[in-house]
């Protein structure tokens, strides 16, 4: 099957989704958030469709999802499958709706108390097209940390998935997405929707390291006094295309968005950071901040950085954004070498110093080590 061949008429039962898709149209290479990703070859490609079958869930200390199906979960988490989940009615990504259209059983995790949770995602089906959705909802006032890890074996395949997160009021959720991909022809398009209710806080860390083709599209909405703090690192090598796009909507008053992106690209890799921060009219006294910096380690590497803001209220307490792309600081590099530090090690010190703020904020040495390993890998 090809994504482009999907016939909307066959999905009569999901009328609202079909309606939505008809009004939006299919994504094309001209669609804003796919413009730099190269969506055409993916839409055009023949895949073997794979629908993850529901199976029994083994008890474990973490959640495991293999090719779109939960195989393990801790007992403390309530897992169910939803046939008609509530869908974000204003997502900007067509593929969000296509994804929901193609999925019959959305995995639902209901989080009821404070916890730290690991989700291990395994991608193993070569040549397959694997659509699935994961919904996470929380009780009010709880504090949850989720760490998502990816293990990729699948080649020439396309995984279409995403989280629908409903953050209840006063809840705090930290989602760390650790996406290390070692396979060049692995493709992933993920479309996420995060709803932050009153006084809630969503902390997002994304690490896209590797050589694959992945794009993640996040629609995040903030109600009154809700906050999102989003941090992104892309480290792309070889012919990687690694990107994240965002529409982050401040909908309620006193809501806050803070977004921080640091990108390192080498070889012929391409990185995408396309973030639109929107302040709606009722979102008085909100603050938005966005900052993207990129280091290109050689000619041929490329970064698309598009921080953008749309503000529809007169009363805003902060709106700042900036974007820079450049090489490693030659003077700094020379300074280190003059002290006897070898060129490659000096470069690595500078690269790490560039990412330092994000690693510090996360306070997790593990990711830093993974980064160093990947950085030091030489052809």
């Amino acid at each position, binding site marked *: 099957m090809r994504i482009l061949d999907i016939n909307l008429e066959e999905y009569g039962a999901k009328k609202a989704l079909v309606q939505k898709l008809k009004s939006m149209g299919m994504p094309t290479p001209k669609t804003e958030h796919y413009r730099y990703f190269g969506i055409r070859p993916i839409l055009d490609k023949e895949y073997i469709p794979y629908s993850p079958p529901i199976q029994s869930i083994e008890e474990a200390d973490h959640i495991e999802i293999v090719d779109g199906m939960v195989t393990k979960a801790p007992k403390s988490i309530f897992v169910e499958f939803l046939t008609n989940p509530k869908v974000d009615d204003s997502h900007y990504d067509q593929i969000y709706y296509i994804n929901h259209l193609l999925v019959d059983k959305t995995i639902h995790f209901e989080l009821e108390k404070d916890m730290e949770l690991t989700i291990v995602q395994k991608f193993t089906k070569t040549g397959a097209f694997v659509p699935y959705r994961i919904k996470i909802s929380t009780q009010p006032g709880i504090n949850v940390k989720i760490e998502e890890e990816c293990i990729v074996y699948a080649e020439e395949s396309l995984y279409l998935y995403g989280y629908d997160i409903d953050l209840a009021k006063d809840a705090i959720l930290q989602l760390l997405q650790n996406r290390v991909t070692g396979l060049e022809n692995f493709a992933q398009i993920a479309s996420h929707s995060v709803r932050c209710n009153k006084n809630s806080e969503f902390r997002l860390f994304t690490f896209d390291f590797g050589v694959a083709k992945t794009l993640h599209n996040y629609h995040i909405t903030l109600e009154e006094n809700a906050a999102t703090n989003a941090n992104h690192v892309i480290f792309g090598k070889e012919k990687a295309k690694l990107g994240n796009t965002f529409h982050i909507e401040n909908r309620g008053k006193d809501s806050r968005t803070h977004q921080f992106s640091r990108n390192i690209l080498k070889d012929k890799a391409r990185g995408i950071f396309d973030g639109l921060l929107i302040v709606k009219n009722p979102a008085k006294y909100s603050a938005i901040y966005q900052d993207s910096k990129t280091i290109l380690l050689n000619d041929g590497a490329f970064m698309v950085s598009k921080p953008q803001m749309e503000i529809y209220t007169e009363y805003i307490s902060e709106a700042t954004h900036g974007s820079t792309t450049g090489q490693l600081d030659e003077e700094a590099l020379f300074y280190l*070498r*003059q002290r006897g*530090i070898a060129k490659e090690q000096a470069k690595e010190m500078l690269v790490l110093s560039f990412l330092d703020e994000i690693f510090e904020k996360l306070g997790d040495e593990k990711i830093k080590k993974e980064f160093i390993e990947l950085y030091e890998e030489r052809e």
Partner: protein
Amino acid sequence: MSTMMKIKDLHAQIGDKQILKGIDLELLKGKVHAIMGPNGAGKSTLSKAIVGHPDVEVTKGTIVYKDKDITDWEPEERALEGIFMAFQHPVEIPGVNNAYFLRTALNAKRKHLGLPPLNAAEFLRLLKEKIKELGMREEMIHRSLNEGFSGGEKKLNEILQMEILEPDFVILDEIDSGLDIDALKKVSEAINKMRTPDRTFMIITHYRKILDYIEPDFVHVLKNGKVLKTGGIEIVDALEKEGYKIFEEV
């Protein structure tokens, strides 16, 4: 007296601009050489050529150091062989911790010398001792390299690095600029303490003040990319009275 470095007919350019136009200099082991000259004379370019700065392209001539032709060596190879430059404008490097940086540099040097690395605790002991001697604030250990340091603190940090790395050939490029008199005394004292029969200093300045504290063995006057005059401390007095024009070729 033995030669530490011999610079012969050195021509160098930055971009398309010819800056050094045939420098001949002999720098002796255990001696302090002062290089004086007006702004734009090429003093910094000469020191950059010696340390192998990528902006400076040597087009003719040679630099021989400890009997080895280092003209084409990588900067870190020169550094490991004992060439150290205190920068006129030390760069700020946010996110690179001062102590971590210095330990990395010292251990690179120790490795080069066939010595075992110092661990963090051993290094910290050494560092704290030196910092105290220099009258620096101990919190500088934990800060990022030169980030938010005052002009004087940056210069002191260069001196600290020199003390830790114990180089054989030290270039001090306007170490005196931007220092008040107390800081200048402190820096001079530290440099004088480092003077040994095996170490060579090249002190670049265009003020005589620092030479009141650090007495040079030789003074070389540089102008327009050439050495105009070499002599002793008496040259400094002549410069003081008459300015650089007295050495101009006629």
